[in-house]
């Protein structure tokens, strides 16, 4: 029984959030800033199933809520839903080609933004930041482009930690 792969991806998520809240804020400009955690979530949801996948989705959502000014719990709900949507659709084989990966990440990015707004509206949270559909589409496109750089790195990390066996093994 080993927790190593799970901890690696959890640490990676945390590190990405730290970078996103510091270095990326300086480099990025407004909506031109990618959501790396979402890309990581899509990757882990595809490759990690069972308890590990669920736990990662929950913890990523929790961390995002802690790091951002979003109403607490928004990311938690969105990430859990995204994880199960990905598992539900059994996207493992569909995510083989790079173009397909990019399109799916863009779609999930849009869903995440729309879901976040919808959830805040449902809970009647006042003054939800407005983000036009164009802004959402631009962010989705940026996240899709990030896939080109991030997915190969994640695949290498995945292959280097996946030889470990235990409850958090990579799905077949």
């Amino acid at each position, binding site marked *: 029984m080993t927790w190593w792969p799970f901890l690696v991806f959890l640490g990676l998520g945390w590190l990405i959030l730290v970078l*996103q*809240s510091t270095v990326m*804020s*300086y480099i990025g400009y*407004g909506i031109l800033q990618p959501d790396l955690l979402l890309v990581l979530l899509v990757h882990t949801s595809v490759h990690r199933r069972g308890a590990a996948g669920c736990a990662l989705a929950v913890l990523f959502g929790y961390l995002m809520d802690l790091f951002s*000014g979003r*109403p607490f719990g928004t990311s938690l709900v969105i990430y859990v839903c995204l994880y*199960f949507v990905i598992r539900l*659709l059994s996207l493992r084989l569909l995510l083989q080609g790079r173009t397909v990966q990019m399109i799916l990440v863009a779609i999930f990015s849009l869903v995440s933004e729309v879901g976040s707004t919808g959830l805040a509206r449902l*809970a009647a949270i006042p003054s939800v930041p407005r983000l036009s559909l164009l802004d959402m589409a631009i962010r989705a496109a940026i996240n899709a482009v990030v896939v080109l750089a991030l997915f190969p790195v994640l695949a290498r990390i995945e292959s280097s930690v996946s030889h470990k066996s235990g409850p958090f093994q990579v799905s077949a």
Partner: protein
Amino acid sequence: MCGLALAQYTLARPAVKAKKALEKRHGFIYIGWLMPNLFRPSHRRRRLLFLLLLGAALLVFHARTKKPGELNALDRIVLTVSAPVQRGATWAYRWAEAVWHDYLFLIDVQQRNERLEREVTALRQRLNELHEMELENRRLRKLLDFSEQHARPMYTARVVGYDPTSRYRTIRIDRGTHGGVFRGLPVVTARGVVGRVLRAWADYADVLLLTDPQSGVDALVQRTRARGTVEGVGEASLRLKYLLRLDEVRPGDLVVTSGFDNVFPPGLVIGTVSRLRRRSSGVFQEVQITPAVDMSRIEEVAILATLPAPRPSLETRCPPCNDPARNAQPATAPTPDPHLPPPAQEAPNPQGGTPP
């Protein structure tokens, strides 16, 4: 539940049949996307797990929405571990940027005269450090002047991180409850209002910027004393709401805090009117404001250590008169924000010292 089970059975059955038919014809074929996992009769545990997790997440969302800004022990641990790393990352980035600007641009010169270049670079770096120190000194001096002007104790803090989402506007500063900072305290720079403390823990705090749509400040147009509420719009500009259509405003007018919200002291600069739109009908006019502080370039901030005392009402301000009915009337204070700590209290300082 029965309906759900029936629906799943109805949906799963044709999918199973289709899969078998395809497998019979073509051998093994993956049609997972045709038959989603949730509809497979054998995946009840997954369904249950999903519903449980979703329920728990919604419960957390509901509970935390009612008490925004409150942190539990786990939150504090995660934030306490993360904030120094954010600080380190910010420092590393600024250092790399400084090296890039001060050193790497000069590689060509170094090739021509290595010794001289090294000396120039070292001197330049030293000069830059001194210049940075001088600028910092100036900024801190302004903050000090500001504190003396407003006769209120305050704390200074450095910005160590920004909101990772581009949608919300918060910053993280390196002073928390141990330094006397708590939720609701106003945050300013010498140029004007920055925002207010959203949450605070041990040595760090998050500040909700004025440009975030969730923030609001009671404000006055300085020239005409017209009153409204300044709100963020999620971008670099602000919006002055509830300003009556007949109130006279023009571009360039200075907008300051009114002090009626019991958070910010009166007279702090918020920004200048940049654009206004007066419709032919309606009660209010739309006014856009350019904030006095560039929120993307804040390095140090000052946190005003106490919340201002409620403004006295006219009864308490006017000299005592002979009208017994009027004298018997208690002075009414403005209703404080229920989300904020009680006003006119000295900020708790566990270290016991006076604020810097």
